[in-house]
């Protein structure tokens, strides 16, 4: 468990990071919290020539509200989301997901942006970001792009991010309706990645019908999955038990799990269904109880 030799640099400015990335391309790796990259280095699954630590770059951390968005700096630690209790009522799903990510040691170090860029199909933030309809701000030398979460996750550890780009911010739109959400995760022990997890985020209209629905699934496919058919089955509907059960079945159908040591494909698909069903009930109860 010793990594191969590499160069290490920790620039103080984003421009410097971007120019180094432009220069080294695929030979470089950005280091954020290190909770995925360092294990990969130690197992020698990754052997970059240079590791560029973004830990000293200002302005990449923090959670704020602006222009109908919640903005999360890419280097914001999981732990900081966990303690952002003022998100309760607006983005329940973030608050419920954060404490389920691994254990406190990992949460103190790991970053939201790092998790999204790493794109582990079993990473929790991917499903959450799909459920809340987040956008990702990514920069390269001289260019900035804003990528929607939907479509960003393309395969295991594969995203729409280019090798010369750094993610700087996550933007989550927050509307004015009553919202509620939650995150359910099946893990084998604390600190484990999900066997199956589901993120649910619901906005109710003034008429009590579902105004918008976001459902993200974790660890049941090659990448985080947005359960679009299930979402569509909810929008405009009164959230009855039958409507919820039908949507949950569609979410289960959207899962593309593979059998492994954690269970059969049928098992994972059914747990996805059960979690979405339970999650929708909680989300709707919360939204109904919430002040607009």
């Amino acid at each position, binding site marked *: 468990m010793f990594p191969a030799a590499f160069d290490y640099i920790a620039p103080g400015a984003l421009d410097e990071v971007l120019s180094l990335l432009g220069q080294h391309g695929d030979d470089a790796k950005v280091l954020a919290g290190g909770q995925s990259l360092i294990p990969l280095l130690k197992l020698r699954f990754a052997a970059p020539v240079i590791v560029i630590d973004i830990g000293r770059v200002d302005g990449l951390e923090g959670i704020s509200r602006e222009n109908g968005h919640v903005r999360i700096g890419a280097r914001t630690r999981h732990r900081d989301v966990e303690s952002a209790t003022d998100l309760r009522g607006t983005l329940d799903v973030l608050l419920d997901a954060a404490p389920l990510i691994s254990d406190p040691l990992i949460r103190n170090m790991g970053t939201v942006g790092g998790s999204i860029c790493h794109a582990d199909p079993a990473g929790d933030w991917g499903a959450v970001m799909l459920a809340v309809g987040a956008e990702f701000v990514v920069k390269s030398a001289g260019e900035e792009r804003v990528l929607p979460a939907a479509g960003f996750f393309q395969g295991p550890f594969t995203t729409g991010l280019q090798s010369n780009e750094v993610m700087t911010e996550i933007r989550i739109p927050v509307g004015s309706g009553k919202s509620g959400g939650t995150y359910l995760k099946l893990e084998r022990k604390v600190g484990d990645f999900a066997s199956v997890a589901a993120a649910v985020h619901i906005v109710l209209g003034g008429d009590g019908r579902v105004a918008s629905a976001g459902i993200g699934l974790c660890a049941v496919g090659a990448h985080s999955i947005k359960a679009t058919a299930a979402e569509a089955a909810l929008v405009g509907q009164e959230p009855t038990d039958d409507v919820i059960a039908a949507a949950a079945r569609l979410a289960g159908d959207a899962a593309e799990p593979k059998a492994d*040591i954690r269970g*059969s494909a049928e098992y994972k698909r059914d747990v996805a269904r059960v979690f979405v069903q339970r999650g929708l009930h909680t989300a709707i109860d919360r939204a109904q109880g919430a002040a607009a």
Partner: protein
Amino acid sequence: MAVETAEATEAARQAMGGIGVSLARKEDARFIHGQGHYVDDVVLPGMLHMVIVRSPHAHARIKGIDSTAAMAIPGVVAVVTGELLAQHKLAWMPTLSGDTQAVLATDKVRFQGQEVACVIAETKYIAEDAAALVSVDYEPLQAITSPQQAIAPGAIVIRDEKEGQTDNKIYHWEAGDKDATDAAFARAAKVVSLETFYPRCHPAPLETCGCVADLDPVTGNATIYMTSQAPHAHRTLFAIVAGLPEEKIRIISPDLGGGFGNKVPIYPGYVVATAASLLIGRPVKWIEDRTDNLISTGFARDYYMDGSVAIDENGKFIGLRVNLLSDNGAFFADAQPSKFKAGLFHIVTGSYDIPAAHIVANGAYTNKAPGGVAYRCSFRVTEASYFIERLVESAAVELGQDPVTIRLNNFIQPEAFPYQSASGFEYDSGDYPRAMQVALDMLGYDELRKEQAEKRAKGELMGIGVASFTEVVGAGKGKDYDIAGLRMFDSAELRVHPTGKAILKLGVKSQGQGHETTFAQIVAEELGIPASDVEVREGDTDNTPFGLGTYASRSTPVGGAATAMVSRKLRDKGKLIAAHLFEADVADIEFARGKYNVKGSPDNVKTIQDIAFAAYTNLPDGLEAGLEGVTYYDPPNMTYPFGTYLVVVDIDKGTGQVKVRRVVAVDDCGVRINPMIVEGQIHGGLTEGFAIAFMELITFDDEGNCIGSNFMDYLIPTAWETPRFELGQTVTPSPHHPIGAKGIGESATVGSPAAFVNAVIDALSHLGITNIDMPLTSDKVWAALRSKGVTE
């Protein structure tokens, strides 16, 4: 004489720290302050580092090894291969079970992770870089991943290098009486059967294995710092394997970060590091990483068991039949007494009065890591206990009886001890119904059964699991029990210095059990020297008497007995000195709690400290100076700890997750020396039992790739998932042990898995679900429910 108040007596008892006092552990200060001293803390001048190149294949022929690229890296000192070792007759070594094991593979690799070459370099980084460059040309062969596959006709022969070995069978072993058992089954009113698998798991001590071998080229002295639960046995085996003169070998096993059986065998890494130090003339350090430890060192269990109990018309068990097939991996390197090919599995009659039993055991080679060790279990007692307790659960279900009632009806009764079991053990003492009753009362069993019925009516799943285990621990006696010929006695050497402070040296070796405290307490009890004045030393073969080491819960039963006996020896010598000081007859000297007096004058005392001083300053003529002794204790029998464990679970129908609501554990380990340490041992064992029942698993895919090779895949529980434990006790002393103690290190690992599994089965049996093999992961429970049409 002043009238002693109850408080003063209690204060004196605490200050002495004898038997029954929950003395804070003497060793904890250094551990809590991060000042423990482990093998990896050993740094010697000129020390080199060794890394092992391991096989990626489970079964492959080696066509060539090219180490040129590795050797070309600056700082690489040597690349050791099997071929090089063969020149020194060290390519193969004997195992604890009388088989042979490759030190470094020469002809074939036989499991994934097998040791193929070793790189020795100036730093560990360099060694790792070079190891990645050792190129081995493999010709993959078909891998055999189960013992059933292994013994099927026509299976590829794994051990084709062994003369006369034409198949993959290792041993055939039987215990009990076949004819008597057949007769019992012939007259049975009912026969209940169970087929179950106790999967492979791993002791996974937090400190992995490793060593620093330091062979002095000038003196020829070999000092080997080693993660060893049995340093003396290892020294002797080193002398035999490596042909080193034994008086020049010194094994030092410093603080151990857990062992659980994993540090009983001798591993190839130790042998190569030692050989390399000898050849190079510099110290060589080898420390496993987590994956090395999980994929190549002593695993546990991997037993396929099926059997039946014959029951008469009154519901009494009259016969037991068990067949087992063990998966021993590529080399038969199990750690167990040599005469017993399946360890002490024949304790399988458990806590029940079963007049006839017959056990048939077969072992097979597979392409998996070797070295079946008893993971916190006395030589396969865990598998046996699991089987009988699961079979009794099945019998309860089939007979429609409460699992408590069926046990009470069949227990060996308290007046039946010493009890001769059908498979050949003599149980020393026990009171099984009482332990059961204490557990039932603690749990509130009847209330919970009512709750279960109400829940069941609503379609909710709740279960109560029962297990009443009996263990057999503390081997010898030496005549019947030996490892590689070394008889299983143990030793204690006690030296009291002139100021009355003592050093106790033992042949056993703590891995976290608290020996420095417990054994000092035995001396305090027997000799009246406060436990705080007794320093306990273990692990250095130059400075401790020969012993067989710590495993199979044998330290207190054997090493503890030796400690009591040597203390008594010194106590008797003290009488001679006291008689001299009092100018009285020895026959008139009395001793109690560290004080000697002449009969009839209890107020005029000489303390043990006075006596110790006199032993060096004022001796009677003709008496040898000093207050020092050594005892080698060969136990007349083993001890038989027992208990009842009760578990309550709730099951989530939607996900199959099992939530353990309560665990009540009533243990009887005879006399408890340090009750706090005993409870700590039970907590640890229950945690591991819980983990084995629900989480821990080493498994393999069809190609023999090991799944479970790091702590993301090999799941050990944290405080978060571990249930809360409610402990109770009964005390039935062992009649043959000097202080009545039985050993507690392993009871909970032995007894609890069946209780956890029985609880789940109890929740599901009304649906027709009778068995799920461990670990009871949520997907397996879900699949069982789904097979019966249950869903959320």
